[in-house]
């Protein structure tokens, strides 16, 4: 019998001999500075050869969002050498020549999808070598702070031609087709215990006062140090089974110009403006398609939360709005083949459709958004994708997304980063994105994203210099600004600058403009900001590279031209890319030419909360997945069979309304209950209790007061569209004109302080019994209003 303390500990195993081997990668340690517009990191990799012969260690990792490698230093007993930036083919030649000569050689080469192979060859028996890799990375910027993400593991991904296997119990292997070059992927250990240790110590350097620093992924220690905050791993060490995620909230919105004049005499800066500077959102009916990833990797909580989120978002729709729902894995199912209005009947159909959705199969993301684009047709609209985004061949998917002309907003879910890809998918189509860990509330984040993306605050953003020295901006500003996501622009000038930059845009109330002063002085951050601009430009250019060009064809020649442009851009900023790699060869006494080092691939942990069997099913032939697909397709042929399937599955996942209500009551989770209330709001904005107009008004007022009491208003909080809709219903009621109590209540609800009362209890009665006690409500509401008046 085993106890919880006797879990098997996995160790690296030599696949050919079955012998346990010492870890080739001993430690991964991240240090550096996190600025509002990106991070400058140094990642220490400590490699050790425990084999009786020389080894070539290959470590595979994914780049964070908008990231590029700058350089590395390789250090060992009696030597230290810096890398050189070379065109990828030249770097590989240098590396191979070094290996052939028996010299210690290291190569950092980037492949498709932002996957990097760091190879260190000819590490001698017993030798320890450290590689210090400098990385520039972007951050997820929000009006009230930022989210920083660094990958400590690499997620296995879906690709139609990928080959996967459970090589040993709890050890998964994945190989990509030849189009992906000679990239080597790691082995995935179901249990990450026993793998290399990871840790971090980062400095948070923001100009605004920091209100809060936290991490949904790791236990952290925060120290104040000379105006900055130092964040480090609280335990001594951790395992590589999830990304590091840090959240930094500022007291005031992030705003202003960062950077300055660098040592090169040039101005490198970033301009940040909060979304609130762009006014109010446009009004008008919404056209939105929810695209839900139901691939196997979404199994469990992520899938359940995605369903719940869509149901809650639908609660904000009216009959004037149009919506569609698409579920995709390696095949696609649509709720209907056209958009539907937000009537209760259609929302109910959507709920049943989502209940029947099970997480199985691969992730054909492109098929999902292509189906959404077809639904939206020529009139366009928004697509909200909920996915873990664990796919390979992302450049092809990005090209397909751009071709649709639709705006895609992404809510990523996962413990291992596909943040880079989903950021690009949203940005390349004019949308916004957010990425959560699987242990965060996906549903609330989806509702928040839904509230932000419906109508942009600004479109057609232009920039011009109206005074002082000319400054240039690259990349171009986004096509639209959405609530909650600030505008961030990278700029350059030829020296000291005191300019005024004019921003012009189309707002909800016509053309608008704003002048922003840009005054640059010497700054230690200038170089970093310039490099962050470079890494962002490189990432954008890589996203537009043709993934599989054919030599000699027009496409192939265009790909060559693109590759040369990328090489020039890399060289300009001194940053690696898919066209340029970093290489170092250290010649040492005792190098033995011609010896073939043993290749050792560093294993990583299966991302936390990702089901191992979703990728590495033991001996599962492709037919088994097809069998499930067949079952699903069969079940959707008739409405009766769908309902039967729902009945079985609702019970197992405990997400039916009653189960959901019981959970929210048992846990006292207010967000759960608000989600349920949101999903109940009628298309006209009123709560469906009965046909009595007065009862409906009171039920709706109770619901409104519940949202207001939790800080959700028409301007803030994830439920702002729902609050707006409730208020619109209440104000439009004919009885408003003759009822002073109602007018006063609405006045306070819209402008005044929150009315105190047991609104949640009233709402629970409303949901459980389908009725409300109007007399008791008005008694409490009148008392609350009198108290406020007295104050």
């Amino acid at each position, binding site marked *: 019998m085993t106890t919880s303390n006797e879990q098997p500990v996995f160790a690296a195993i030599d*696949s*050919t*001999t079955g012998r346990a081997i010492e870890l080739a990668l001993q430690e991964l340690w991240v240090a550096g500075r996190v600025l509002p517009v990106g991070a400058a990191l140094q990642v220490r990799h400590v490699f050790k050869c425990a084999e*009786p*012969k020389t080894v*070539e260690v*290959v470590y595979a990792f994914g780049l964070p969002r908008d990231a590029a490698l700058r350089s590395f230093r390789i250090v060992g007993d009696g030597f230290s050498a810096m890398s050189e930036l070379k065109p990828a083919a030249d770097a*590989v030649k240098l590396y*191979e020549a070094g*290996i*052939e000569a028996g010299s210690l050689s290291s190569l950092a080469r980037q492949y498709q999808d932002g996957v990097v192979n760091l*190879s260190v060859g000819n590490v001698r*028996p017993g030798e320890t070598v450290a590689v210090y890799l400098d990385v520039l990375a972007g951050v997820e910027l929000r009006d009230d702070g930022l989210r920083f993400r660094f990958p400590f593991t690499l997620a296995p991904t879906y690709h139609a031609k990928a*080959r*996967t*296997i459970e*090589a040993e119990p709890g050890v998964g*292997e994945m*190989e990509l087709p030849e189009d992906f*070059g*000679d990239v*080597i992927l790691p082995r995935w250990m179901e249990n990450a215990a026993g793998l290399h240790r990871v840790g971090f110590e980062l400095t948070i350097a923001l100009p605004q006062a920091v209100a809060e620093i936290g991490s949904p992924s790791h236990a952290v220690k925060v120290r104040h140090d000379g105006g900055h905050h130092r964040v480090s791993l609280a335990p001594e060490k951790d395992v590589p089974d999830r990304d590091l995620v840090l959240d930094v909230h500022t007291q005031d919105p992030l705003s202003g110009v960062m950077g300055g004049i660098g040592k090169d005499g040039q101005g490198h800066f970033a301009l940040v403006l909060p979304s609130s500077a762009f006014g109010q959102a446009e009004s008008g009916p919404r056209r939105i398609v929810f695209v839900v990833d139901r691939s196997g990797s979404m199994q469990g909580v992520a899938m359940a939360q995605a369903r719940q989120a869509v149901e809650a978002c639908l609660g904000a729709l009216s009959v004037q709005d149009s919506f569609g729902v698409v579920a995709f894995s390696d095949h696609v199912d649509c709720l209907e083949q056209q958009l539907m209005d937000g009537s209760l009947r259609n929302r109910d159909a959507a709920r049943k459709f989502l209940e029947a959705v099970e997480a199985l199969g691969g992730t054909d993301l492109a098929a999902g958004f292509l189906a959404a684009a077809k639904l939206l047709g020529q009139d366009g609209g928004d697509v909200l994708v909920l996915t873990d985004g664990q796919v390979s061949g992302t450049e092809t998917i990005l090209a397909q997304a751009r071709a649709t002309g639709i705006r895609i907003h992404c809510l990523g879910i996962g413990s291992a980063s596909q943040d880079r890809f989903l950021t690009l998918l949203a940005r390349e189509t004019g949308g916004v994105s957010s990425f959560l860990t699987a242990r965060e509330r996906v549903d609330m984040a989806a509702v928040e994203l839904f509230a932000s993306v419906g109508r942009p605050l600004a479109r057609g953003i232009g920039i011009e210099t109206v005074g002082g020295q000319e400054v240039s901006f690259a990349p171009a500003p986004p096509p639209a600004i959405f609530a909650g996501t600030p505008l961030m622009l990278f700029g350059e000038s030829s020296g000291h600058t005191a300019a005024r930059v004019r921003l012009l845009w189309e707002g909800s109330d016509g053309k608008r403009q704003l002048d922003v002063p840009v005054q640059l002085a010497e700054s230690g951050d200038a170089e970093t900001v310039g490099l962050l601009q470079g890494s962002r430009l490189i990432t954008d250019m890589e996203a537009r590279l043709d993934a599989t060009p054919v030599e000699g064809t027009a496409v192939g020649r265009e790909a060559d031209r693109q590759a040369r442009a990328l090489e020039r851009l890399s060289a300009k900023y001194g940053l690696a890319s898919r066209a340029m790699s970093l290489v170092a060869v250290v010649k040492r006494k005792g190098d*033995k*030419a*011609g*010896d*073939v*080092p*043993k*290749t*050792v*691939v560093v294993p990583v942990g299966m991302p936390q909360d990702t089901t191992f069997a979703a990728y590495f099913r033991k001996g599962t032939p*492709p037919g088994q997945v097809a069998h499930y697909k067949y079952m699903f397709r069969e079940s959707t042929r008739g409405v009766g069979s769908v309902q039967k399937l729902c009945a079985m599955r609702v019970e197992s996942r405990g997400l039916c309304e009653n189960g959901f209500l019981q959970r929210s009551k048992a846990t006292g989770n207010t967000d759960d209950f608000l989600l349920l209330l949101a999903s109940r709001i009628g298309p006209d904005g009123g709560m469906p209790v009965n046909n009595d107009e007065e009862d409906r008004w009171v039920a709706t007022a109770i619901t409104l007061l519940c949202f207001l009491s939790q800080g959700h208003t028409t301007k803030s909080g994830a439920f702002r569209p729902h609050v707006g809709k409730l208020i619109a219903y209440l104000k439009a009621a004919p009885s408003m004109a003759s009822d002073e109590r109602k007018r006063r209540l609405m006045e306070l609800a819209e402008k005044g302080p929150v009315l105190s009362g047991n609104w949640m209890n009233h709402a629970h009665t409303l949901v459980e019994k389908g009725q409300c006690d109007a007399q008791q409500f008005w008694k409490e509401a009148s008392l609350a209003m009198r108290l406020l008046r007295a104050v």
Partner: protein
Amino acid sequence: MTRSEGKAEVEWSLAELAEETGCPPRTIRFYIAKGLLRGPTKAGRGASYGQEHVCRINEIRNWQDKGLTLTEIVRKLAGDEPSKIIEVPTAWWSYQLQSDVTVQVRADASPWRLRQIQRALKDLSNRLTQPTTKENRNDDKQ
């Protein structure tokens, strides 16, 4: 590329093998480490690869095209065709002691074992260079 004296056997360096097969050198080393491919026929500065390596790399590609992973290919080699199982080690050091004596030693032997073998080879080399004595001749007679 060289041709062995008096034989039709073609010998390639790792870079030449990579060019011949279109399989990058690092991937070839990876195959060797996984036991899919035999190591060079000779180790050291003159490490070389032959036609069997080209054939095996093509075989691996064919199996991959059929959807097999490298691990499955290793198993296939072990299960279906036991004679083709690649033993570890895959490379050999070649010590030429005299113009008429060459000794091959497994390249991945442990360091202590290699030192032991090298000492023995040194002794052997010394003995082979010594002038013929009466004692040697008696040994030969026995």
